[in-house]
């Protein structure tokens, strides 16, 4: 904030000759309030009308705990797998030149553009016991669909672009001189990549991981078809919310939704902290 003006009077807005501040900010706030904030406040209000013991008994219900564990567990594994392969794909896309690179680069965004229900039925067609890929595993008595493995595969699909698109721009900006310096000082290629380059990418990798993880925890459409939705085995938390709603158990749905919201806001906060920390340290987000 500029404090060159003599008066240190608090003001909402710095002076400007550009018109429309009141109109655009007013409209934005009103729309934000109507569409996002009031409905969310309604959820919080509903949750706060539950007594603490009611809230706890819903959350410590075995089925709720199992669903939360499955959601967070599969999202964690999928995000970790995506971090490893996502960074590798970034490296290939940024550093190497090969025919079809542009096409593959564009393909990475497919999970952003493909409706989740479409991804869901396609994945279950592939991994069902009689599906294209599932059939190979059936003789070995390995089931992919209708187990947490299937959920993880769906979340890998959904989460990949978050990692790639977060890490890629930062990787593109790496100064080649850093690598040259490392090589001059006697580091071999392996050491240069793992001790010099990857640490500077760590904030971006962590952000990508957190985004993929947060999306995975809340994901619904691509998971419900492949999950089989067996309580205690492959029932995810968002689905349990839907089930509670269909039972008209609004208290149950609200309590599960609230705990998921709290956790995703905590994730959002962590992402912002990582980004502001890395801006201070590396000069990029």
């Amino acid at each position, binding site marked *: 904030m500029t404090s060159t003006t003599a008066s240190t009077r608090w003001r909402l807005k710095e002076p400007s000759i550009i018109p429309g501040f009141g109109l655009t900010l007013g*409209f934005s706030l009103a729309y934000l309030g109507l569409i996002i904030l009031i409905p969310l406040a309604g959820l919080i209000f509903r949750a706060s009308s539950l007594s603490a013991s009611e809230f706890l008994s819903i959350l410590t219900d075995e089925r709720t705990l199992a669903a939360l564990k499955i959601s967070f567990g599969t999202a964690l594994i999928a995000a970790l797998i995506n971090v490893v392969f996502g960074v590798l794909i970034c490296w290939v896309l940024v550093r190497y030149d090969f025919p079809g690179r542009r096409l593959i680069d564009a393909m990475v965004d497919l999970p*952003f553009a493909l*409706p989740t229900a479409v991804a869901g039925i396609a994945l279950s067609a*592939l991994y069902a016991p009689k599906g294209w890929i599932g059939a190979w595993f059936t003789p070995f008595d390995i089931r992919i669909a209708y187990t947490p493995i299937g959920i993880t595969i769906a979340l890998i699909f959904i989460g990949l672009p978050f990692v790639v698109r977060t890490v890629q721009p930062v990787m593109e900006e790496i100064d080649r001189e850093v690598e040259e310096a490392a090589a001059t000082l006697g580091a071999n290629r392996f050491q240069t990549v793992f001790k010099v380059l990857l640490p500077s990418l760590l904030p971006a990798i962590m952000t990508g991981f957190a985004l993929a993880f947060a999306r995975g925890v809340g994901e*619904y459409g691509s998971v419900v078809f492949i999950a089989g939705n067996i309580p205690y085995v492959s029932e995810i938390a*968002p689905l349990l919310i839907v089930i509670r709603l269909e039972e008209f158990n609004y208290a149950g749905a609200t309590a599960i939704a609230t705990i998921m919201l709290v956790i995703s806001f905590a994730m959002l906060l962590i992402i912002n902290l990582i980004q502001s920390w890395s801006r201070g340290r590396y000069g990029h987000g």
Partner: protein
Amino acid sequence: MADRGTRFVNPVDERTGTKIVLTSIGGLYLAFFLFLPLVAVFIEAFRKGAASYWEALVEPDAAAAIRLTLLVAAIAVPLNLVFGVAAAWAIAKFEFKGKAFLITLIDLPFSISPVISGLVYVLLFGSHSVLGPILKSYGIEILFAVPGIVLATVFVTFPFVARELIPLMQDQGSGDEEAALSLGASGWQTFWYVTLPNIKWGLLYGVLLCNARAMGEFGAVSVVSGHIRGLTNTMPLHVEILYNEYNMAAAFAVASLLAALALVTLALKTLLEIRFGAGNAGGRH
């Protein structure tokens, strides 16, 4: 190039063998997790031939679902477009207190599970809520009707346009607008003739992503729609119903339309990025 006998190894590059291995791993990962599901959609869609494919798309319930999806997108996208432009104008052209917080709030829907996005409207407008019965007594139905579907879609696609325009307009600064204003242009003239031409490609990019998500949204819409065939079923919901009825060919036929939409979106998006450098990638959506 390497001399015969002494092999030159570039110290800041990988050996060709390593490159081939890394590229293959990345390529296989993408082929397996992204490309294969996409191919599966189209192959499954045409499994019973072109005639039954066509039939699945023109039967009345499918046609109604397609019409509803187009209607919902036609309402939700312009609303979020107007909001996105207004919010970006306020945020990019002015300095005011609480700006960073406002940006965080705009991003909020990205970190909320789609199921919860639907749930908040069920709690707000459901038959047990305060608002629901009042509106119903005036003959206004929100839940399990088109307005609820539109609201849920607006919620989940809320940040897309704003997210695209804010960084773009911040980069462009206010110099052009200040010049126009000092030469006597009115506020609206400045916006139409100066700002809009500057941001049109970024705007198109945001609208494209917003539209793809609006037409493909599943979780949020599923919670509020009530799944009334021919009335409140959007295309993704229609896909789900057909799939659960084991009408696979028809489910994949409708899904293939959505997949085609995703491919067109990706193609246009890539084109915009190549031609105009729109969209500065960085883990969003």
